[in-house]
């Protein structure tokens, strides 16, 4: 019996020929990522060394990435002090993949890693962030862990006790309609299999729709795989992956494409027909409460957010600018834009997207995670409703348990900004 992509990656990382589903393995980690919660990782890491009389040194400083993105620039002295503590540690340990609060390097961790070529197909990537699943978009096995587990990785260079996960094969075929995007595919999938449908499993994406999808779209898919509970999402690496790594991320080395065997054994197979898909909306307060836009159009919205690790990339900003060009954000609605990285910010500026968006009434903030999880800017008032391209709509997610969050694609967010209520982008007249 053949192996899935993740089985192959894990086997290689363990120095084995094959691994079986359910087996517990201890793979070598190729990249270990943290953000501001690195402050807690440092605390736990130092505790591991207590009483050992060994030098407190990470296993390999070149394989650790730390990116400030959750609260940038710091919103409080507490955060600033945590960031300071991390900066000192980075220097002390010689960690080079460090992205501080600077326009030329900053960004959301799940954009910084691919953009800088830190992730390659076949890598084992772990991160102290649940959306680490994103990096499966480049053919890596990437999963979220807690801070103490990261401290253990920093110490040993291996992830302890990883159960080889079963894999769900998702096949997406057909051509997406105008203004139907990767976000709609993943929301539809989560609605179909539920918020726990892939718990402890991997989602492997296949089909011609995926084959024709760029890395930005694939990042959106894998990013939200965790909202179905998945350990990781993964798109087996192909020419598109190679092209992205070479020409966008500037990777010079040879890229090894790891693909699943033809006869790999899957837990289940889910087929999605892209031709018939409408824009999808995840309604409060669970990500699997998904409805086609036809059923929720007309709901009044106080705040629109475009950004985050899910949908803050250049293509997303272009979609928003194309729809908002020559239009105005509705009077009772605020529109906030959080680009996914400084690089994207600069490119969007050059291309004039920000002029268009600001003329329409949008506010462009620096890149960061802030509003998505209600920790930095963009909080909601009591009873307010947000429509957002982010990834979670849990009660209280945007900082107020008395508010509601709907999730959507950038096209739906932009069209709804004009009308001030949830609007199908296919019904908006575009200006040149």
């Amino acid at each position, binding site marked *: 019996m053949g192996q899935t992509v993740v089985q192959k990656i894990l086997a290689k990382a363990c120095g084995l020929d094959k691994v079986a589903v359910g087996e517990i393995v201890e793979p070598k980690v190729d990249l270990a990522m943290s953000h501001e919660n690195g402050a807690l990782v440092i605390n736990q890491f130092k505790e591991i060394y207590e009483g050992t009389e060994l030098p407190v040194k990470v296993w390999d400083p070149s394989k650790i990435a730390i990116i400030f993105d959750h609260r940038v620039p710091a919103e*409080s002295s507490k955060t600033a002090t*945590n960031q300071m503590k991390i900066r000192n540690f980075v220097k002390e340990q010689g960690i080079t993949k460090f992205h501080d609060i600077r326009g030329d390097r900053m960004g959301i961790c799940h954009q910084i890693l691919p953009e800088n070529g830190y992730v390659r197909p076949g890598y084992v990537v772990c991160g102290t962030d649940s959306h*680490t699943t994103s990096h499966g978009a480049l053919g890596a096995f990437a999963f979220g862990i807690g801070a103490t587990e990261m*401290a253990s990785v920093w110490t040993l260079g291996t992830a*302890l006790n990883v159960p080889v996960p079963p894999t769900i094969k998702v096949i997406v075929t057909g051509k997406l309609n105008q203004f139907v995007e990767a976000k709609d595919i993943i929301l539809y999938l989560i609605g179909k299999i539920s918020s726990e449908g892939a718990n402890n499993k991997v989602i492997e994406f296949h089909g011609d729709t995926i084959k024709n999808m760029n890395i930005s779209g694939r990042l959106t898919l894998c990013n939200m795989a965790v909202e179905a509970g998945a350990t990781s999402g993964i798109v087996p690496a192909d020419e598109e992956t190679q092209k992205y790594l070479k020409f966008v991320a500037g990777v010079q080395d040879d890229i090894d494409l790891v693909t699943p065997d033809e006869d790999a054994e899957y837990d289940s197979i889910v087929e999605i027909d892209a031709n018939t898909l409408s824009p999808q909306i995840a309604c409060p307060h669970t990500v699997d409460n998904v409805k086609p836009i036809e059923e929720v159009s007309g709901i009044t919205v106080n705040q629109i957010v475009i950004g985050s690790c899910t949908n803050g990339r250049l293509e997303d900003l272009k979609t928003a600018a194309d729809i908002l060009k020559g239009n105005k954000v509705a009077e009772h609605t605020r529109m906030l834009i959080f680009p996914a990285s400084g690089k994207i910010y600069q490119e969007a500026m050059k291309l004039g997207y920000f002029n268009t968006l600001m003329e329409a009434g949008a506010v462009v903030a620096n890149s960061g995670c802030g509003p998505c999880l*209600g920790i930095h800017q963009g909080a909601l008032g009591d009873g307010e409703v947000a429509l957002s391209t982010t990834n979670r709509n849990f009660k*209280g997610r945007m900082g107020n348990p008395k508010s509601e969050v709907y999730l959507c694609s950038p096209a739906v967010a932009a069209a709804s900004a004009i009308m001030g209520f949830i609007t199908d982008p296919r019904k908006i007249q575009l200006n040149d």
Partner: protein
Amino acid sequence: MSKVIYKLGDDISTDIIYPGRFMATVLPTETPQFAFVDEKELNKMLVNNEFEDGSVILANKNFGCGSSREQAVSTLKGYNISIIAKNFARIFLQNSVNLGLNTIQCPDIEANLGDDLEIKENEVINKTTGKSYKIIPLHSARQAIVDAGGLIPYTRKKLLERNK
């Protein structure tokens, strides 16, 4: 005996257990005050210590879904309670094992507020109704971490073995 002191529904997210707005607080000794801070009644009961040691919070499916934030576990570890749920989200369960929070997977559990439960190795007995329910045991590799007293001592032991 363990009393059910609070009942929760499906998909209790880490944003409900430990809202993002308190995430700048990271140290395990400082997080317990914010446990279920928006579930005011539950937070008050915990913070004011209005329960007996070993009491149970009972939830349905997918408890701890969402973020990898370890505060969602350390905040509960600050109290002498157990969490029984039909099942747990992956990262939350793993964090519980790593920090030593007592989480019990019991897919068929049925109990009301105030029921007395007896938690045994393989089953939970509801003493109030007389019914018993099977526990899904932790994988042996995870149990090894619990037995070592958590991931910090477990890793320390491995580190010392490597440096022998």
